């Protein structure tokens, strides 16, 4: 006997004790797929035959089954399953997870089972007899219990010869990788469909012989395939021609199509079922009336072959007429089919007497992109990685296609209004302030984030808690926070006398990673500032769903507002906005918002408290005390005590305190007005539809230079590119660094020429800083340059810092990529929160 089961289903074994269920299951299924009630009973009660442990046993069985089905794994329940109640609860479990319940029953002759029992488990003979009778009677009840498919094996031969065939689900076309052209609801608009296909590069030939290929031959652009989201028919002028065209394409393997509610209804009508001829069905029937009966038969075959939804491209793309929730994707049940065809309604009726649709896409957080139609909207737009492609062509709108994976939209305007819509077509809008809030449950506890650049980044629970606290108590509106910058590691510790850090170590690191070219950028000593800026408030509202918070925001590396004074922030942003307009950057990037990574000076503007309480205080204490010490030592020396060495040592200390004070003073100036600030952008991180991490740093620097020319409040960053095999260029860069840092500069940042650089071992550090000798005094203390102190300080480990830098970088880029492709915002927030969590890992803050 051939037992055919879907690749994902719930298999129940049924049969008397000792009938050979476990042997059968073990022969045909993986051991991990089988949940044995005997094994579970032994686990909860130490023995396979403890009857009073039944409830506990099945609680465990169900729990395991539930966890597996939730993950979409085939599950076999190996229990007697002789009680209807037991079977029913498994059926409802299968329903809950939208999988088919299948039963395999062993109904062998009683003597055979009695014999096995006698040598095996040795239950009472009457127990076996009772089991056997129950099994026999159960088969009659299965259909009523909702078990669609069962197999009865009543001879030893059948048991021995049974084979199990797992067939892929109809909706599983994961091996189809595209590229695709996904086309919205056509509704009989044949002319627009043909024009759209031609615009997309398909060659459409109409045959005189209407029998040939249903009357059309379509030649797609190389490798491409059209995908229809359903509702080919009704309302429009030529549903019959649309069917001919799509059927010919499907037959030739150039198109896929899922069922729409109108298609399903047409099929019912054609099959002679009683349906109301409303909502444009009459037009379709009229158009089909002129078609030959043989074609109508083909249409029936075509329509009945339409599946509810497709999983394409390895599961990354889902096509369903009315969209599909994540937990139903790839599953099969009548609930799933009904959701795909009709969507879900809230139960309310709107002012036009139509049911109010539940906006499933608002809450969508799935990994897969969902393309759908069903609800006409004026413009196809992204929401949480889903897109509604029904742009109401038949209502006088347009017919829209989305190219996948390019995510480009392409459309043809309707030639006329074929039908007045029964309710006005409005954008799927979320009332301002009523967009769903981020849900805490999505961010709690330990979790793992898969990023494109680095798989499986673990966020530990304790760090995550700290991040949640920071985010809740101090951060700006989380909708602004699409990015937090990664930490940056210093270069390896230098062993050159008097130095802790030196550019040669950084060059050596990148050389060893196989990097050929690096860029050295001057490091400004200010505070890290992330800038989100929009062309205007409307652009911000549209893209960030933030109202009344200005044209942008400036936040710190931990997501806090940079300015206490909101007016000052907005004034600075307006200056930046003007500069962007004058530098034509909006046009060049084809965007109305930009995210910049910047340094904002002076340091004292943000770090006033730190400066006063820490740096200035240490300097003041040192100067005060060492003055007294020097006087006293001078006296002692004068009266002839041998304090020469002591005097020298303390004079040196005094001089170092002096140098220390000079070091921090460089980065301080008083801020009285906007003019006293300097903003130095150094990355153009993202703009509409793009993360600019695919460009070289030179690309960024060029554009930023042009931008900074527009306004002197903007400060361009000095930089040099260095070929790592050119010793002269390296020497030049070292000299440049020395000159910069001796003038009091903080130092420089060395980056691979490419924003993202991989080596054999994985990601290369995106940037390494190399700080100046004087600057490091404010990090390591006034006296750190003494060789004995340096010797101690050189024992510093960089590996943890570097690992953090890589993880945070990968998370930062991932968050941005999710944002620009309109993933659910919670997916973006997850990355941002993870960066913040990494930042609460304890690591030497001096690095």
């Amino acid at each position, binding site marked *: 006997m051939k037992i055919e089961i879907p690749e994902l289903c719930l298999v129940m074994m049924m049969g008397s004790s000792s009938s050979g269920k476990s042997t059968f299951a073990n022969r045909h299924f993986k051991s991990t797929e089988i949940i044995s009630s005997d094994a579970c009973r032994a686990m909860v009660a130490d023995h396979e035959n403890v009857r009073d442990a039944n409830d506990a046993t099945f609680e465990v069985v169900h729990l395991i089954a539930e966890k597996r089905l939730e993950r979409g794994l085939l599950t076999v329940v190996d229990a007697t399953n002789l009680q209807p109640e037991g079977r029913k609860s498994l059926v409802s479990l299968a329903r809950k997870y939208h999988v088919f319940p299948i039963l395999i029953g062993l109904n062998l002759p009683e003597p055979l089972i009695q014999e096995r029992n006698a040598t095996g488990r040795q239950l009472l003979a009457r127990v076996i007899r009772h089991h056997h009778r129950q099994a026999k009677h159960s088969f009659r009840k299965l259909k009523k219990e909702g078990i669609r498919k069962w197999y009865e094996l009543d001879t030893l031969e059948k048991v021995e010869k049974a084979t199990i065939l797992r067939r892929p689900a109809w909706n599983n076309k994961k091996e189809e990788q595209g590229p695709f052209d996904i086309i919205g609801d056509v509704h009989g608009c044949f002319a627009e469909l043909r024009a759209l296909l031609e615009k997309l590069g398909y060659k459409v030939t109409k045959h005189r012989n209407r029998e040939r290929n249903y009357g059309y031959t379509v030649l797609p652009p190389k490798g491409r395939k059209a995908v229809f989201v359903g509702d080919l028919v009704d309302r429009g002028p030529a549903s019959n021609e649309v069917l001919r065209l799509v059927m010919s394409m499907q037959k030739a393997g150039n198109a896929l199509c899922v069922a729409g509610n109108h298609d399903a209804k047409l099929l019912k009508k054609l099959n002679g079922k009683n349906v109301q001829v409303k909502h444009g069905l009459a037009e379709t029937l009229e158009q089909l009336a002129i078609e030959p009966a043989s074609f109508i038969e083909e249409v029936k075959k075509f329509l009945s072959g339409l599946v509810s939804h497709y999983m394409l491209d390895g599961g990354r793309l889902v096509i369903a007429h009315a969209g599909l929730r994540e937990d139903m994707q790839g599953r099969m049940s009548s609930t799933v089919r009904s959701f795909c065809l009709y969507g879900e309604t809230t139960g309310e009726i709107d002012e036009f007497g139509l049911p109010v649709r539940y906006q499933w896409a608002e809450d969508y957080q799935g990994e897969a992109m969902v393309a759908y139609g069903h609800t006409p909207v004026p413009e196809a737009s992204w929401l949480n990685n889903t897109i509604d492609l029904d742009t109401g062509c038949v209502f006088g709108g347009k017919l829209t296609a989305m190219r996948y994976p390019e995510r480009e939209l392409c459309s043809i305007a309707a030639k006329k209004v074929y039908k007045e819509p029964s309710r006005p077509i409005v954008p799927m809008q979320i009332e301002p*302030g009523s967009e769903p*809030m*981020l*849900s*805490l*449950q999505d*961010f709690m506890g330990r979790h793992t984030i898969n990023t494109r650049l680095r798989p499986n980044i673990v966020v530990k629970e304790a760090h995550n*808690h700290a991040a*949640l*606290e920071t*985010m*809740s*108590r101090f951060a*700006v*509106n*989380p909708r602004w926070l699409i990015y937090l910058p990664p930490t940056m590691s210093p270069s390896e510790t230098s062993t050159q006398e008097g130095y802790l850090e030196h550019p040669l170590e950084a060059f050596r690191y990148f050389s060893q990673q196989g990097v050929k070219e690096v860029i050295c950028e001057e490091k400004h000593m200010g505070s890290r500032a992330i800038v989100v800026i929009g062309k205007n408030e409307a652009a911000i509202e549209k893209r960030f769903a933030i109202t009344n*918070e200005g044209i942008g925001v400036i936040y710190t590396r931990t997501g806090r*507002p940079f300015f206490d004074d909101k007016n000052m922030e907005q004034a600075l942003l307006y200056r930046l906005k003007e500069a962007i307009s004058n530098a034509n950057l909006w046009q060049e990037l084809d965007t109305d918002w930009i995210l910049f990574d910047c340094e904002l000076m002076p340091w004292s503007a943000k770090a006033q408290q730190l400066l*006063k309480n*820490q*740096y*200035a*205080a*240490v*300097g*003041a*204490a*040192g*100067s*005060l*005390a*060492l003055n*007294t*010490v020097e006087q*006293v*030592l001078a*006296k*002692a020396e004068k*009266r002839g*005590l*041998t*304090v020469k060495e*002591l005097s020298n*040592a303390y004079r040196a200390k005094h001089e170092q*305190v002096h140098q220390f004070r000079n070091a921090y*003073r460089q980065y*301080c100036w*008083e801020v009285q007005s906007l003019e006293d600030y300097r903003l130095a952008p150094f990355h153009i991180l993202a703009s509409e539809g793009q993360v600019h991490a695919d460009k070289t740093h030179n690309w960024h620097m060029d554009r930023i230079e042009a931008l900074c020319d527009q306004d002197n409040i903007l400060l361009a960053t000095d930089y040099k590119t260095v070929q790592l095999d050119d010793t002269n260029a390296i020497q030049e860069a070292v000299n440049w660094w020395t000159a910069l840092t001796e003038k009091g500069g903080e130092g420089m940042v060395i980056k691979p020429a490419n924003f993202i650089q991989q080596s054999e071992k994985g990601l290369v550090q995106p940037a390494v800083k190399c700080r100046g000798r004087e600057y490091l005094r404010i*990090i*390591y*203390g*006034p006296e*750190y340059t003494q060789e004995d*102190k340096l010797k*101690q*300080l050189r024992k510093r480990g960089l590996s943890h810092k570097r690992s953090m830098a890589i993880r945070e970088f990968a998370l930062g880029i991932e968050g941005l990529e999710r944002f620009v492709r309109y993933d659910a915002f919670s997916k973006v927030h997850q990355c941002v929160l993870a960066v913040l969590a990494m930042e609460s890992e*304890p690591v*030497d*803050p*001096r690095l």
Partner: protein
Amino acid sequence: MILQITTTKPNARQLGYLLGKHPDRVQEKSLSFGKAHIFFPEANENRCSAVLLLDIDAVTLSRQQKRNYADSFQLGHYVNDRPYVASSFLSTAIAKVFGSALNGNCKHDPALVEQPLPLEITISAVPVRGGLSFLKQIFEPLSYKVDAQSTVLDEQFPEWGLSPYFELKLQNTLPLRDVLRHLYVLIPVMDVNKHYYIDEQEIEKLLAKGKGWLENHPSLKQITNRYFKRRQSLLRKALNSILSENNDADCSKDVKEETLEQKLSLHEQRHEKVVTILKQRKVSSVLDLGCSSGKLLHRLLKESSFQKITGMDISLRTLEIAKRRLNWDSMTPKKRERIELLHGSLTYRDKRLEAYDAAVAVEVIEHFDLPRLSAFEQSLFRYTRSKTIIITTPNREYNVLFENLDPEKLRHNDHRFEWTREEFENWSKRVASDYGYQFYIVPIGPEDEEYGAPSQMAVFTR
């Protein structure tokens, strides 16, 4: 970092005997945290002056303290004022270097120990919390003449103001032993910090070094409090020991504690009001949002009509404290069934909070940045949607009546705003209409005719 002791007594060089150091030698002593240098910049019969100069190695120091992992990563450990100031390091050095003088021993001439000497003490740099007035407050009752020179933080940035450091000069005529004891105790008191972990042993030290002068000092309590870095348990024990030896001491509570008590009672009044309203509303499950260390939870547990009590806070540390205060681990099972503690945030939607009769947020909203308050509103009024929601917040108008509060400032460092009665009422009105609630406002605490009550409460119902 430097202590200079000068005497102008006849035969001034006898200072060397007292300190056990030869005035013509330069000596060095190794200490756990660095080195001490001892020398006499002046040493004639009319005037003799001894110097204790410390060389504290900040880098070694911070590397030694790796045990205390998180702490050793404080940026401050390398860029640190400790090498330059007179702190508990100096007290330790006095004990190690001038131990015999501190304990009142003098091998050469025991008679000198009790003898009052004209002494001048110079210490630099002294970090003082409370400035010159505090210096006078602690030294003048011991009949010192106090002269302290303050400095600016940075002469290039005069707008940054004064530094907390002084060069301190003291003059007095006292036995050297007494002066050293004063310094030993009072140096860390000025700074309110200690470089080592303080435990019960610290009480012994204080009793020994403070004997004979501390018990009658008018600032006894403040000195002791600072000496133990404001650790209340040690403070109480020490005061008991000191005062039991001296019954005349002033036992009355100081001003600070009184204000503390007033606050406590205001807090209790809030809680009583909350409980009364919850009982009126016949509530059986309550959420305490921002439960902090669990005072209200404790109060709610006493009412058996509340069958489910859940406290939530954003800080895990605070929740740990709440658990301790509530005796979490030894709670009876019946009680334990009624209470739950959650870590969570009020700026997110939280499904766990969605089935409670009432939600209470006592003195919570003022901790949100105003633009973020809308997130709190949504979380509470749109999702949690309890039938009764109680919110309390300070009444800003009342601040003028607080004596110790700068009228420009808010009551707490972390308060992002404080509202007048009108502002609170307007907000409540708007929220109630946006989310379909009714509301009324109740004042909490003694009402002033002009400024109202110190705190205000809005009760939302639907």
